[in-house]
């Protein structure tokens, strides 16, 4: 299973597994410890694949149900009510209900509807697109994938249902996975988006800490600098890409999407100004710049004189990072990542 919950037939963990049950948390009331869309795989061999679990007592019931399903086939919706004691154990403070969709999947069978849809969504991710995978929460299996680049795959059984689902996809892409009702049937809209790409400009100590911590957050990191002796693999073993050249050109060649965050940590206007000129009118999700408030004001003044508006300039988070009182490179990196997550989740503008 990929890190974001897609079944990949090429995954070595699936080798020798003729069938698995994919368990997906599709709905929850109360304050769940896992968000809707969390997944777990229960293999025919009894193995649990992937690192995503749904939580304490729920896991046990899901595994028990999955064991039965993997042998006889089919799919079911498991609705689990939580009394107060159970709720306390898994972090639900006032009880609630979770709904878990269980689907038997034969990952290596080309005609498996769910496996094929996961493969298509995986290909979309690989080319940088986001996708929504729509499946009925119970009943006969079906899958329909709609990507934000216009590609689509599969069907929910009727063109009218596919059209209705397509009409709901934009809203899901803009927010999060959820169940929607079309006609008299409920469907799970699973938002599958590429990981955040963190572009780090300036290959110093803060950047080194950023790449290490960003890996834990499953972000893809690109380290950019004009200095070959700084942006080295020895200094950045965790970076996904190291780019040396004219930083503003390198950044301009990275496709701008809301899933791109740019951290300017060179503390050098010669990189920051050209990059900001290119980025302020691009739809990147986050721009942060290292420096004091005074420095931020000076940079904004220069850019304002060049014609950038106050709204455009307000997109730059500077001083960068949440104010957690950190001073070391690692602490600053932590505050930057916290701010990126806060912006991504809508907790901070």
């Amino acid at each position, binding site marked *: 299973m990929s890190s974001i919950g897609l079944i990949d037939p090429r995954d070595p963990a699936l080798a020798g597994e003729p069938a698995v049950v994919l368990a997906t948390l599709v709905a929850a009331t109360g304050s769940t410890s896992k968000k809707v869309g969390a997944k777990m795989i229960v293999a025919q061999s009894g193995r649990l694949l992937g690192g995503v679990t749904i939580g304490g007592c729920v896991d046990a019931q899901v595994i028990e149900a999955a064991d039965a399903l993997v042998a006889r086939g089919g799919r079911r919706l498991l609705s689990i009510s939580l009394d107060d004691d159970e709720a306390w154990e898994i972090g639900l403070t006032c009880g609630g209900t979770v709904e878990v969709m269980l689907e038997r999947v034969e990952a290596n069978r080309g005609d498996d509807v769910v496996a094929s849809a996961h493969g298509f969504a995986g290909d979309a991710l690989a080319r940088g697109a986001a996708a929504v995978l729509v499946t009925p929460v119970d009943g006969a299996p079906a899958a329909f994938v709609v990507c934000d680049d216009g590609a689509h795959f599969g069907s929910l059984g009727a063109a009218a249902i596919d059209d209705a689902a397509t009409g709901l996809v934009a809203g899901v892409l803009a927010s999060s996975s959820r169940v929607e009702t079309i006609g008299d049937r409920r469907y799970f809209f699973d938002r599958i988006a590429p990981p955040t790409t963190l572009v780090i400009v300036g290959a110093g100590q803060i950047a080194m800490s950023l790449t290490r911590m960003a890996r834990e957050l499953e972000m893809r990191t690109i380290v950019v*600098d*004009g*200095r*070959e*002796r*700084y942006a080295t693999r020895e200094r950045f073993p965790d970076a996904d890409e190291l780019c040396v*050249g*004219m*930083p*503003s*050109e390198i950044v301009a060649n990275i496709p701008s999407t809301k899933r791109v965050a740019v951290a300017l940590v*060179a503390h*050098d*206007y*010669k*990189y920051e100004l*050209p*990059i900001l000129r290119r980025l302020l009118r691009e739809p990147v999700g986050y721009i942060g710049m290292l420096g004091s408030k005074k420095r931020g004001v000076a940079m904004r003044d*220069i850019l304002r*004189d060049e014609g950038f508006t106050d709204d455009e300039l307000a997109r730059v988070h500077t001083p960068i990072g949440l104010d957690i009182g950190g001073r070391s490179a690692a602490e600053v990196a932590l505050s930057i990542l916290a701010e990126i997550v806060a912006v991504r989740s809508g907790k901070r503008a």
Partner: protein
Amino acid sequence: MTAFRAAVLEHFRHPRNRGPVDGATVSIDGANPLCGDRIRVQLRVAEGRIAAVGFTADACALCIAAASVLTEHVRGMSTTDVAAVDGAWINNALGGEPPRGRERCALLPLDTLRRAIAQSLDAAP
């Protein structure tokens, strides 16, 4: 503020010839590896003269100011005459000498321009 500093800031804020050159016949990148200044100088050479010149840079104010005055000066000049332009000319154009340790910043555009012209001459029939 000294005349030198005023000139540098003025050219930094309003650089001449910044941007790519349409129909460039030669394009050369230059860098100061330790400070990280990066510049690209583009020329369109026609009949032995610099018909158009431009630069793109992620560089400090001094480097950009030097590129600005240099490109203004050499536009229209014959490629052979550019050999007479040196660091002293740049200092004179900016009204002073760069601070100690910053000489490379001021010279990077000139060095890159010279390499661009050399490439242009090499490529000439």
